[in-house]
């Protein structure tokens, strides 16, 4: 695997987050085992992995809430160890679960966190925007898990931070709530905020992230842009249905170099190789010449889930 250089020196812009060879051990067992991360301002980095992969531990080290056993970490150019007050003022943190007094009302909690910042967003606007207006006076312990999660999100962004950590921001939300969070993350990114989010939802990582790091057992198993990850190394395929037992020689000749065609089961055809518009047109014109209608024609592309399964042999949601 490509080994990134040590921490970037003073040259160039300060990155939002830089992690090199991070190791965190729990009772001798490495929960995070040599992780590297990079995040630039105005970008979204998704840490994708199953439960217990080391996502939360990594985030907590970056937030300064947890120590590390080895490695270098720079958050906005500063080592978060010991969580210096001046650094924390520039971060927004959404912890996984909890994060409020059991009896505190929604509006009070957002107000409390807002006073920690010099130029916070308007708490009333934020409460309203995140769909919490109807429970603004409800004590925290009586909120639904989804409402608690939206409150945690409000507390993470109210201080107008430069870098936001979102630990499983949509884990308990309904599709509507999830879409709201996604819109918010996109708005943060557009306004130049750097976002590190953890998730075990592929769709979330694929939709939001500029860069995805898939981790398992505290190690990077793959990383890249969503497109890189789903396209890289994969020979894509094209499938269609037509009459059984057609003569494929003409089609094989018409296909570009490197593409093969077969009939795995009668009436079901498979073209393998690098599928581009040229391949598609070769298939459809061949069908036209044969006087058949290609049915159920589709280009299959690996999903992030397939990638993850290949890499770890495990279900992401396990």
């Amino acid at each position: 695997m490509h080994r990134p250089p040590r921490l970037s020196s003073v040259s160039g812009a300060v990155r939002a987050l830089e992690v090199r060879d991070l190791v965190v051990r729990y009772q001798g067992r490495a929960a995070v085992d040599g992780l590297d991360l990079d995040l630039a301002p105005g970008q979204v980095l998704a840490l994708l992995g199953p439960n217990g992969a080391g996502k939360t531990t990594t985030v907590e080290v970056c937030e300064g809430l947890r120590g590390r056993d080895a490695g270098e970490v720079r958050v906005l150019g500063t080592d978060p160890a010991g969580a210096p007050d001046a650094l924390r003022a520039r971060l927004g943190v959404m912890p996984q679960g909890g994060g409020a007094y059991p009896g505190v009302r929604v509006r009070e909690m957002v107000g409390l966190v807002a006073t920690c910042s010099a130029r916070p967003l308007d708490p009333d606007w934020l409460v309203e925007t995140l769909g919490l207006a109807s429970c603004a006076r409800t004590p925290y312990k009586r909120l639904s898990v989804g409402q608690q999660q939206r409150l945690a999100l409000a507390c993470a962004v109210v201080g107008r931070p430069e870098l936001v950590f979102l630990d499983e921001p949509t884990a308990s939300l309904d599709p509507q709530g999830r879409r709201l969070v996604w819109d918010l993350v996109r708005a943060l990114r557009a306004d130049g905020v750097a976002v590190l989010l953890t998730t075990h939802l592929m769709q979330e990582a694929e939709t939001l992230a500029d860069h995805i790091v898939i981790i398992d057992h505290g190690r990077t198993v793959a990383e890249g842009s969503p497109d890189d990850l789903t396209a890289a190394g994969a020979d894509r395929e094209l499938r269609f249905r037509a009459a059984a037992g057609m003569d494929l020689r003409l089609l094989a000749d018409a296909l570009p170099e490197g593409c093969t065609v077969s009939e795995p089961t009668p009436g079901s055809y498979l073209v393998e190789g690098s599928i581009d518009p040229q391949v598609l047109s070769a298939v459809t014109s061949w069908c036209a010449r044969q006087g058949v209608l290609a049915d159920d024609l589709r280009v299959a592309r690996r999903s992030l889930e397939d990638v993850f399964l290949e890499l770890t042999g495990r279900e992401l949601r396990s």
Partner: protein
Amino acid sequence: MTFEAGTFTPAPGRGSLGRMLATQVLLETKLALRQGEQVLLTLVIPLALLVGLTLLRVVPLPEPRATSALGTVLALAIMSTAFTSQAISLGFDRRYGVLRRLAATAVPRWLIVLGRLGGMAAVVLVQVVVLAAVAVALGWRPGAGSPGWVVLLVVLGTAAFGAVGVLLGGSLRAELVLAVANIVWFVLLFAGGVLVPAAALPGPLATVVQLLPSGALAEGLRTALVGGTPSTVHVVVLLAWTVVAGGIAVRTVRWS
């Protein structure tokens, strides 16, 4: 949902420390006075005991009864707030991750601790005012007491019980804290020199009680309220509990 461009443009910075502290103290006070179980412990029971002890001659108390009863319930009220209520809320606040939440903001950690102590002090102040007002209605006349000693004992008692409460609430699981804090409260009320004065307890227990924060505070307050000077032992006992429990708490209390 679409957001106007620039809504989230970073503008970080720490808020004013004074406002942060004031907001936290006010919020912690409101939370303590809003929660039914806590108010039962910190205000309702002390008030009921104040009225009962003054009007019903069940427990032997030196005359004037309203004065002696006030000493007893002030000690109880401080124990309820600084120890039981504080330990339980700390236990559950840790469970709910609020300390970690606050620790992840720009608030300095010392300010979070100060905010908690401020909330506790504010509740004690409310208790003192309410109990004193009711005691006046029951016939207590403040003129006879030693106000300096009373204030000092209230402060020392709050500190001693607060230190033990933080130690308990900061180290065990929330449910365990709840159970232990309530049992200890109950035991100290009856056998710790609060309700029953040390002198009325059997020999060895009487000696032990003098060394407990409950006994020292209640005895001291009853003495100071009738104009006497509390024994040095009581003052030293309260100081010692503060220093020892506080010292251990600083090392052992966990934020989550």
